[in-house]
């Protein structure tokens, strides 16, 4: 058995998901080769325990993401099961590699057990599939679903050059607009209520939201009283949202507010009143003044690996 990991290029060295993929490879068993398109972070990769070989795959084509060209460059090098991370690039590239090799692909695996027993969510998390794989497949693994492998390895690093030509040309890069995500689309929402004390404190929620890629929501009380846009209002007469994570800061959890957010997958509440009804639906409740808790929360988020 062998496993080939295709590690997504990353600007600052090795892609942070690589140690997790190595860990997954060790569960599958057999030799583990890491291919890094563009070659960034190969040295770091070689020091992860369990990696046998690192291939720096160099070529002009790696300046632009072009899945069909990249998969042509990569496919010849892979051996055995192929692992990638479930990122936008990982999804597209893995499917392309799989189809090119005439294999099946399993995306967004959240659990992996020996004998290639996999689990993955479907129907937007409303169901979980248990999958068994025989033979060589291409698999993407959800970031942070699996622990990282330890460091302490010393794999061989070699270089392969690819002469593949890009089929896609970039005409223009458009920087991310400063626009906020809409609460009805966001996977993480941080909402503020009257407990924030003043409208200006929403800036603090916004900076946490920026670190999380989250949208900012609000309770009706502050939408009405501070004149915030109605589109931010979560609740019965606002938006009904079902993000993976809903963070309620200084919101009491009135029934009308709960109506709009209680089906969120996880709810974190920060409120100074231990009796606040929001704690009744919270998966994680922090009883504290938000002025104290939010900076600590923000720092902890920023220092996540």
């Amino acid at each position: 058995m062998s496993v080939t990991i295709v590690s997504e290029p990353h600007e600052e060295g090795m892609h942070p998901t690589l140690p997790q993929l190595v860990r997954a490879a060790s569960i599958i068993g057999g030799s583990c080769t890491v291919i890094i398109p563009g070659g960034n972070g190969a040295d770091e990769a070689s020091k992860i325990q369990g990696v046998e070989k690192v291939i720096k795959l160099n070529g002009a084509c790696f300046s632009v993401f072009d899945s069909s060209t990249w998969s042509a460059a990569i496919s010849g090098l892979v051996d055995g099961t192929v692992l990638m991370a479930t990122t936008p690039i990982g999804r597209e590239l893995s499917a392309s590699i799989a189809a090119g090799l005439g294999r099946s692909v399993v995306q967004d695996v959240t659990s992996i057990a020996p004998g290639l027993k996999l689990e993955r969510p479907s129907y937007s998390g409303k169901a979980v599939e248990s999958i068994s794989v025989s033979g060589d497949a291409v698999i993407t693994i959800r970031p942070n679903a699996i622990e990282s492998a330890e460091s302490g390895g010393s794999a061989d690093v070699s270089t392969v050059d690819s002469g593949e030509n890009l089929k896609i040309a970039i005409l223009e890069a458009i920087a991310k607009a400063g626009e906020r995500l809409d609460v009805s689309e966001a996977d993480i929402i941080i909402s503020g209520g009257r407990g924030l004390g003043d409208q200006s404190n929403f800036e603090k929620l916004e900076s946490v939201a920026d670190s999380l890629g989250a949208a900012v929501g609000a309770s009706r009380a502050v939408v009405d009283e501070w004149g915030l846009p109605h589109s931010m209002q979560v609740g019965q007469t606002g938006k009904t949202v079902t993000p993976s994570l809903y963070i309620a800061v200084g919101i009491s959890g009135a029934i009308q507010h709960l109506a709009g957010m209680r089906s969120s997958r996880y709810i974190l509440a920060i409120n100074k009143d231990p009796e606040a009804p929001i704690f009744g639906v919270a998966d994680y409740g922090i009883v504290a003044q938000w002025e104290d808790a939010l900076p600590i929360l923000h720092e902890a988020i920023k220092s996540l690996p």
Partner: protein
Amino acid sequence: MKVAVLIKQVPDTTARISISGGLVDEGSISKWTISPYDEYALEAALKLQSESGAKVVAITLGPQRSSKSLIDAAAVGADELMHVLYEGDTGSLSLQSALAAAVRKSEADIVLAGKQAADTNSGSTAPGVAQMLGLPCVGLVSEVKVVDGNFVATRSTSSGMERVSVNGPCVFAFDKGDEELRRPNVRGIMMAKKKPIESLSPADLGVSMEDGGVNVESVGYPPEKPAGQTFQGAASASEVVTKLREEANVI
């Protein structure tokens, strides 16, 4: 120019999913719709139809009930409808082969699809079909235009947006765009009912739906969340962040 749009029929995203005997109970699903991202692909195809005179062929693979999504596509303006009729479950490989064969048969120049389906949530179809057709693929696209004979697409990247150009046939996988989706009008609905659907079996396309390797053993409900936990004091915030990462896996 001919544009193929790959459309999948899925349970409405608000539908409750019931599971029995290790399978999703399809009978309990009251409402089926076109998978949301596919609707953006269809909208983009209809834009190419009105702006560049393209013909739009809507293609679906699925059981009999999924022909409804083709009629819905016709109601907003799809010119041709092709149904690869297959009642069973599909693996990614056979599905992609059958769709690629259908695209070939339709003689479409470019292919638009959603970035991922609302049921399987995989996102393999567009890049897989591209590979099988020997075409490039551009993902996370919100817009495609024809500019001087090239296809110019806007796609999102980790750092923002990018306008990319492809100078020949290509597969584009659509994300949600800014475009408002058009609504069918009565005339469209009445014409849709008269539009013929070309119905083909995988065998007609020379494709076998046997797909070794990956086996969905069973489907179940996600595990129950642990009971709510309460922490006293601001300092606990960092512990909670760790739990959000490790226990809940949401950040």
